[in-house]
């Protein structure tokens, strides 16, 4: 079922394209040697180049270029061996140069594609139009003084990748899935940390609506949306606004809007109406950016395994597509799973990682990389089940203790006497005791009430503090009751 919004005049389709600004992971800025680290003291990571002082010349950071190329390769896009920087001219207090160095006419990366997976398990290809390198602007603080804004230029000049999609998305879900997937690819590649809270990834959302079978109608751009959830909300809010305009007999004007997260509506940014004449021209400070094909090939050869490939490999290892999807969402999770699965049954490991391990992490609110239970620790626990030292039920308790105390599973099992009882004598004794205490139920069972078998298993396990070997308990119980 394709997604539509019901208006008074019938259903409307929604058309969405995204421009994502992703901060390049690098030590220094795109054109200067100042640091990029988040959270430094104001204006402490600023060089004269970043502050737009006269006579300063930009010199490009080769790692930023490499990161853009890696990202392009990860998006299965064409890499342009010849690209160029332009000046995008506008005035704003946080843009000291009076222009942003960007790539307008000749971006470094051309068309590519991203495959998204939707909740119903279906997949869809989203086209990438281009990726280009550009400088970030400084940061304005508006809440520090009643009549002034404060400017911090630490971010000024940091390298950004602007990744532009085709208008291929048709629902908030698809827009959310695209952004999630893009973030996942960037994080796997290590080219952007994808940290939306710190502004490392921000999206401009282009939205239009239309009736089935029509061409595109006028779109509006919702600027600077900083979470996946807000992107999905902004799409729906903006689409509903446009539908109302069309249904009232009006026309949608192409304009830039802001999403008000508190009220859940978009509003016009009228003050920038005049700012769209950017008068781009080639930056005379910067000759063209020319890449060697061999260098691009060497970057390609050193790319890490990407999420789609890794997911396919996990399915080939015997995992369900769902488990493979969940385990590959974050690179750290996949690495943890692989460390545990080395030399062990992949399916069993996947069940434990996605089941009890994730549940315990969620309870503690920790990420995989901060887990008190290491991959080696979990692996040791699974070995104790495999060699029948403990049963699966006790293993869950041991895992909980591991999370609490950080102890190794072997030590926990020994110290607390949790070894599985495989001595049939002990099991028989426990069964005899339970049968004696429940003579009435034994009679009921023998007269045909088979369902009571589970009750007996439970009682026996309880009598044995959960340490009975379940297979043996079942077997002996059947003999004795039968």
């Amino acid at each position, binding site marked *: 079922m394709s997604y539509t919004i019901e208006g008074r005049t019938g259903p409307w389709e929604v058309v969405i394209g995204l421009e994502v600004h992703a901060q390049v992971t690098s030590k220094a800025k795109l054109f200067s040697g100042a*640091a990029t680290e988040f959270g430094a003291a104001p204006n402490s990571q600023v060089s004269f180049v970043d502050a737009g002082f006269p006579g300063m010349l930009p010199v490009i950071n080769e790692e930023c270029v490499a990161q853009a190329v890696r990202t392009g390769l990860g998006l299965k896009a064409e890499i342009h061996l010849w690209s160029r920087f332009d000046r995008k001219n506008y005035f704003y207090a946080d843009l000291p140069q009076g222009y942003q160095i960007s790539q307008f006419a000749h971006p470094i990366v051309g068309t590519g594609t991203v495959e998204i997976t939707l909740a119903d398990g279906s997949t869809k290809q989203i086209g990438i139009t281009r990726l280009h390198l550009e400088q970030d602007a400084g940061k304005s603080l508006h809440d520090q003084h009643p009549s002034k804004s404060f400017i911090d230029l630490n971010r000024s000049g940091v390298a950004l990748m602007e990744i532009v999609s085709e208008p291929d998305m048709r629902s908030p879900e698809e827009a959310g899935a695209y952004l999630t997937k893009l973030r996942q690819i960037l994080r796997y590649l290590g080219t952007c940390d994808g940290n939306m809270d710190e502004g490392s990834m921000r999206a401009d959302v282009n939205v239009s609506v239309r009736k089935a079978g029509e061409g595109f109608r006028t779109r509006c751009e919702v600027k600077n949306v900083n979470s996946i959830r807000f992107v999905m909300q902004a799409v729906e809010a903006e689409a509903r606004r446009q539908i109302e305009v069309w249904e009232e007999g009006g026309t949608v004007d192409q304009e830039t809007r802001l999403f008000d997260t508190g009220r859940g509506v978009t509003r016009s940014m009228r003050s920038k109406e005049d700012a769209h004449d950017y008068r781009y021209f080639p930056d005379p400070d910067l000759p063209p950016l020319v890449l060697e094909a061999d260098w691009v090939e060497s970057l390609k050869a050193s790319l890490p395994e990407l999420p789609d490939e890794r997911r396919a490999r996990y399915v080939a290892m015997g995992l369900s597509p769902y488990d493979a999807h969940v385990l590959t969402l974050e690179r750290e999770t996949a690495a943890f799973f692989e460390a545990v699965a080395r030399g062990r049954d992949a399916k069993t490991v996947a069940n434990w990682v996605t089941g009890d391990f994730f549940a315990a992490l969620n309870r503690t609110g920790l990420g995989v990389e901060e887990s008190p239970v290491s991959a080696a620790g979990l692996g040791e626990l699974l070995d104790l089940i495999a060699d029948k030292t403990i049963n699966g039920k006790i293993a869950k308790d041991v895992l909980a203790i591991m999370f609490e105390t950080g102890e190794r599973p072997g030590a926990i099992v020994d110290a607390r006497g949790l070894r599985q009882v495989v001595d049939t004598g002990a099991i028989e004794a426990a069964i005899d005791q339970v049968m004696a205490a429940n003579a009435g139920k034994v009679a009921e069972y023998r007269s045909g009430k088979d369902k009571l078998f589970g009750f007996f298993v439970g009682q026996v396990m309880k009598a044995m503090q959960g340490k009975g070997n379940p297979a043996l308990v079942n077997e002996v119980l059947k003999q004795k009751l039968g």
Partner: protein
Amino acid sequence: MSLDIPTVRRIAALARIRLEEGELAQAQAELNGILGWIEQLQAVNTEGVEPMAGGGAVALRPRPDAVTDGGIADQILANAPDRQGEYFGVPKVVE
């Protein structure tokens, strides 16, 4: 090609250069003079010549990804007309 007065006014606004009404005609004459000179250049036959962005180096020379600059907030802020602690103060700009 020649610019009319409204276009001159718009260019001045985009460049944040304040021109009084009385100054527009002079700016128009100067800009049109420059455009006329560029038109002369366009008479040159450039058939088969690749467009170029400059005449010096043929390609960018990169630098390594190392932190070599920054940590000079006082110098960065030295010329600020309205320094506010470690920040530049500017008239409030709110959307």
